[in-house]
């Protein structure tokens, strides 16, 4: 993962830029406005030295042959002339201020809105990706795509890109004005450029090497800290404090050294650029001065050149910074688009299937998460409407997979699963899932109130239904002890509740929509004796009169089911009722015997009515 995050590609990738522009297109007129504003604004930026030149050549040190764009409009009187130019300058600055603000706001507006669109698209995409996608992509990384990566892009669009335009406009205008003043002198300024580019090139090379080391070492520092903070108890219990400190110091030293090298590069680069820019000023002073002495150039122009030259190099330095921003934006967009390109589940457009009574059939079902590693092999069984099914099997036998298939989190490779005689793949996905009430093994709770969690934000579930669900799930007693009842807000992941209480909330959630089919993957975590009793009671009530499928871990729960499946390594080894399975003298019978071997053994194939300990 870290490698993927670190990889930096080119700063300009046409394919990516083309795709990014697609997000800006809806706001293109705003962009056009911003660009025009930026161009006008940069004109106001270069007006200062020009007005200085006018003031000097016309009033302060009058040169008769000076050409001025608007010389004829200016008053003859020097004092009034200076004041007029001052007011003009102030007015231009005011306009510049308005344009600058307008342009910034417009581009930020575009950036924010297009990033809003992108985030919405990403989130919606995540809601539609197949479950298998999430098996390979950790949640943390996906969160980064929607948040940080989009943010990086936004920075680029609304800040870097604008500054880039700005810089280019300003540079162009300076060059144009300088050439108009005196093309020979402007050659000096432009002539220093190759030296600057060369310096920048070497600087970037040196810094890139340092940054490469820095990135690696930052990752190492992060991993080290992460590991040693999480595993501090292990460090302490094994007396490893000193050694860990020494290791950390080593990495840290390398990191510090890498930065000092980068600082060295900066310490050389900045002075060199400044040196070159003052060198240009000196050359202008020399050649310009010579021309002034020969009377072929005015002082005002020499001074304007000096001022322009100083302003010339700042945008160029900026440009190389922008390159880095652009590069990381490209890396971010590459990752974002990779996520957006992940293929969605094939949606089979389905004619609405009429609601049936809830008959489930597995018809020669084969399934593997990957390749030929079959999790289920040729599984066949039927659950009649209103009856209950219990699945027995060891961890990894394929029990939970069967539930995932029923909910169509995955599709079967061979065979088919039928609900009321219709293949699951012919159902509308949402309509299909709404038929089930589900309790997953991990009792997950969302942020919100307990009632929100039961209702799952389904506005169609009435207050009365929620309360009925709470009663049936044996949750009411517990809620009564809370001052705000089911309106109590849950802390992060329901951290205030015990495991058992979370399970009961999940039960209530499954019941609230009054589903025709109940699916229950019993949690393995053990709970205290009181809660255990509550859960059992609730279970009994919930199963009554519904088609239900449950993965259970207690024979006492299982033996009440209408049909019991014994699943072993993906193969359905036995199926039947409790009585039938006992008569088979197979796996189930052995389990049953084992469980009660400490008590009196029932007669081998007789009708057992053991005393089940609560």
């Amino acid at each position, binding site marked *: 993962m*870290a490698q993927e995050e670190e990889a930096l590609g080119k700063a300009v990738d046409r394919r990516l830029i083309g795709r990014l522009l697609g997000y800006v297109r809806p706001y293109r007129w705003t962009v056009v406005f911003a660009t025009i504003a930026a161009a006008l604004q940069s004109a106001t930026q270069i007006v200062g030295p020009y007005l200085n030149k006018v003031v000097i050549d016309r009033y*302060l*040190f009058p040169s008769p042959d000076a050409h001025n764009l608007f010389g004829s409009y200016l008053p003859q009187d020097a004092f009034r002339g*200076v004041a007029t*130019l*001052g007011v003009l300058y102030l007015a231009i600055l005011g306009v*510049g201020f308005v344009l*600058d603000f307008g342009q*910034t706001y417009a581009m930020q507006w575009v950036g*924010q*809105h297009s990033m*809003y669109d992108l985030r919405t698209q990403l989130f919606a995409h995540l*809601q539609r990706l197949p*479950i298998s996608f999430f098996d390979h992509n950790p*949640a*943390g990384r996906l969160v980064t795509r929607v*948040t940080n990566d989009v943010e990086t892009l936004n920075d680029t669009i609304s800040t870097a890109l604008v500054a880039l335009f700005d810089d280019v406009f300003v540079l162009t205008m300076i060059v144009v004005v300088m050439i108009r003043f005196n093309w020979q002198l402007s050659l000096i300024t432009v002539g220093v450029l190759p030296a600057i580019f060369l310096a920048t090139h070497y600087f970037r090379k040196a810094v890139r090497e340092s940054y490469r080391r820095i990135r690696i070492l930052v990752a190492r*520092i*992060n991993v080290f*800290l992460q590991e*040693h*903070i*999480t*595993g501090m108890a*292990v460090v302490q219990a*094994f*007396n*490893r*404090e000193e050694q860990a*400190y020494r290791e*950390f110091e080593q990495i840290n*030293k390398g990191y510090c050294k890498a930065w*000092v090298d980068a*600082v*060295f590069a900066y*310490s050389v680069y900045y*002075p*060199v650029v*400044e040196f070159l820019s*003052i*060198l240009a000023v000196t050359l202008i002073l020399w050649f310009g*001065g010579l021309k002034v*002495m020969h009377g072929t150039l005015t*002082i005002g122009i020499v001074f304007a050149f*000096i001022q322009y030259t100083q302003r010339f190099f700042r945008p160029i330095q900026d440009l190389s910074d922008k390159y880095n921003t652009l590069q990381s934006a490209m890396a971010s967009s590459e990752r974002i688009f990779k996520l957006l390109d992940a293929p969605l589940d094939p949606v089979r457009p389905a004619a609405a299937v009429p609601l049936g009574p809830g008959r489930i059939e597995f018809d020669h079902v084969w399934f593997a998460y990957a390749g030929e590693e079959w999790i289920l092999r040729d599984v066949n069984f039927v659950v009649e409407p209103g009856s209950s099914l219990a699945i027995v099997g060891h961890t990894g036998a394929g029990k939970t997979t069967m539930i995932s298939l029923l*909910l169509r989190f995955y599709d079967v490779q061979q065979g088919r699963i039928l609900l009321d005689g219709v293949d699951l793949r012919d159902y509308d996905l*949402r309509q299909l*899932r*709404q038929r089930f009430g*589900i309790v997953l093994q991990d009792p*997950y709770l969302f942020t919100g109130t307990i009632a929100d969690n039961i209702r799952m934000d*389904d506005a169609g579930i009435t207050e009365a239904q929620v309360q009925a669900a709470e009663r049936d799930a044996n949750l009411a007693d517990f809620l009564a002890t809370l001052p705000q009842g089911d309106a109590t807000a849950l802390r992060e992941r329901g951290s205030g509740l015990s*495991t058992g209480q979370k399970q009961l909330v999940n039960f209530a959630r499954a019941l609230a929509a009054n589903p025709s089919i109940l699916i229950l993957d019993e949690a393995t975590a*053990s*709970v*205290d*004796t009181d809660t255990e009793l509550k859960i059992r009671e609730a279970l009994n009530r919930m199963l009554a009169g519904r088609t239900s499928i449950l993965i259970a871990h207690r024979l006492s729960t299982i033996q009440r089911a209408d049909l019991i499946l014994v699943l*072993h390594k993906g193969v359905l080894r036995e199926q039947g009722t409790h009585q039938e399975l006992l008569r088979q003298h197979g796996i189930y019978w052995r*389990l049953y015997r084992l469980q009660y071997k400490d008590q009196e053994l029932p007669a081998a194939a007789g009708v057992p009515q053991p005393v089940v300990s*609560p």
Partner: protein
Amino acid sequence: MSWALFKSLWPYLRRYRLRLALGLGILLVNTAVFVLIPYIIDLAIDDLGQGATLAKLLKYCLLLMATVSARAVLNYYQRLILITVSRLIEFDLRNDLLARLETLSQGFFQKFRTGDLMARAVNDLTAVRNMLGPGIMYSAQAVVLFGYVVTILWHLDWRLTLIAFVPAPFVSLAVQWFGKRIHERFERIQSMFSNLATRVEENLSGLRLVRAYAREPVEEAKFDQLNRDYVQRNLRLVLLSGAFDPLLQFLLGVAYVLVLWFGGRAVLEHRITIGGYAAFNLYMAQMAFPMIAMGYVINLVQRGAASLVRLQELLHQTPDIADGPEADAGIATLRGELEFRHLSFSYNGVPVLRDVNLKIPAGATVALVGPTGSGKSTLVSLLPRLLDTPPGMVLVDGRPIREIPLRVLRSSIGWVPQETFLFSDTLRANIAFGRPEASDAEVEAAADIAGLGRDVADFPEGYQTRVGERGLSLSGGQKQRTALARAVLRQPRILILDDALASVDTITEERILEKLEGVAFRRGGQCTTLLISHRISTVRNADFIAVLEQGRIVEQGTHAELIGRGGAYAGLYEKQLLEEELARVD
């Protein structure tokens, strides 16, 4: 930044006081050279106006070259010295931070989450370093430059200086007014940003439920609300931040206008020369960047100060578990007799253990069972003193645990934690974590006992295989067996297995436990074992089983006794048995 806060940095600054002094000295000279440049241009332009000679022009040009060369050298050293110091202090602070964390107990690590600690060690440290490096350098430079420029301009024409600096107080007002508000809005946006991230995270964690209940549209609506709010907030920030920069530019522009207008008048009135007029313009340009940067620098310092507070909060934590005066240096080995005496323990105000009484003779195997959250792990964490209790509640070899030197206590314990934790290193380094000096043979023997030997043979580089991030990813069972080998290699007197083999299948686990017992016997049966497990097959052979519920021991006895009683243990037995026996089916 408050004085007290600054003083807390003094020990670090002190270490580099000579370099700092040198760096700031160079900065003084460097800035002085910097302000010479406009001055030379000023002289040159004056002379040009009065009909200069070639020699004079050459002199100015050479002077400029000399100045700018000196400037380049000084600039180089100034940056190198001052910024490097900030990197060195960052280095020191980061080391000190880890050293401090190493002395803190699990109580601390429960209070501060890993993410929070990481943020402090990474982001806050960066902010402090930025304050110390660029923060100090740029603000010192701005102050010195301001001083020099004002002095020079005052000498040229004090009235024009006053006029030219009219925008200055407005700049400082704007920086303060905007700075504060932008900061506030920015903070709020940051917290909204993390809300957004939390929302996505929660959606992905509850993914299967969202899909199962077909709640995607609701989830999208919820996300949309946050997304919309986030955009609105950002645009409100832009209203300020988008005006701030143009406003600064405008105010600086006003200074130019004033120089053009009133400086022009001054030239016409012959109070200053044309060169002086140019100098005013050039000095304004020199001041422009530090002025604009002031907002940025103030921000650096503010963030740095806030981060420093957060860092100090960690650096000033008192080590909560350490040898006290009661530690008896005479104790070098332990027998392994354990006792909990009326032990009650609370964690952040929540009682976790209540009046636990348990005496374990040296060499015995005791199993602890009970639901999650019943206090089992907390109970065993008290033995290596990862958590501390009030005195007298935990005794080892009949003596209060605090009398035993921490090093002796911990090196006598082999602890296999519930959440297996391995480090990104070689397999060998992980096994030899508690005894880096152990021989290869010893490491291999420990691995064999833990049932890991055969797996290692299949690894590409055997014991030198790197595991963890960027290495081979081990299965849950392999990880747990590695952690067990790590504990076994210490040849502990007390072995703690905190649900340590849950990911290993039942049959392998039994085999490992048998081997462990054999080893213990070879050493004279002196290893006291505490076993936490949900598996009946694991605990049934223990000398003694204690059942915990909500921090209390509710049942105790041997397996047979507890089954006979038909209580909590018997209930657990029923639930577990099925799964365990199914695992045995072929």
